[in-house]
């Protein structure tokens, strides 16, 4: 089994309920294809540094996955057809980094 980090960017004008639907939809796909989710992170609505399909902001979802090539293939094939998504990125890692969450700090900063 391999470890992967998978990040999605969803459209800005999507409702929180729809984001949960997306999360459930893709976690189902992963689990149906010999994979399992180690950790899920929601980075929330963030500013994009450049326009993507006329979107200024994007909803970021981050999965840490244990699985094989088949899982990723199936996942990416369905994502290509999804109109709610702007981008996705899969990175294969040797070890999953479960402790540091780089984007939680960013959320706390504006509250202060």
């Amino acid at each position, binding site marked *: 089994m391999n470890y992967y980090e998978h990040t999605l*960017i969803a459209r800005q004008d999507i409702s929180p309920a729809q984001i949960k639907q997306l999360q459930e939809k893709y976690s189902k796909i992963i689990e149906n294809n010999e994979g399992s989710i180690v950790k899920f992170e929601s980075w929330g609505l963030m500013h994009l*540094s*450049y326009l*993507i399909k006329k979107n200024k902001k994007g909803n970021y979802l981050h999965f840490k996955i244990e699985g094989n090539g088949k899982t990723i293939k199936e996942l990416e094939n369905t994502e290509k057809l999804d109109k709610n998504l702007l*981008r996705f*990125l899969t990175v294969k890692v040797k070890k999953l*980094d479960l402790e540091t969450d*780089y984007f939680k700090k960013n959320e706390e900063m504006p509250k202060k």
Partner: protein
Amino acid sequence: MKKKNIKKKNSQNNFSKLSVFQNQKYKFKKKCPLSGKGAPVVDYKNIKLLKRYISENGKILPSRITSVSQKKQRDLSLSIKRARNLALI
């Protein structure tokens, strides 16, 4: 003449960022800041770290200015490109 002035200003601004690494104190420091014990991990999610190694225009700074080792420079450029793809930088 005016155009020339603007160009000069830009280069100065850029240089001011570059000179962060070439302070008078650290002018002869040749050690790599990313390798060795206790060094930060290069990762495409660690934007704060990556932003130190790009210019104002978003270009990757050469290692001869930042004195990053060859191996770490390869890691850096890969993770900067990943962060660009996700519109983080």
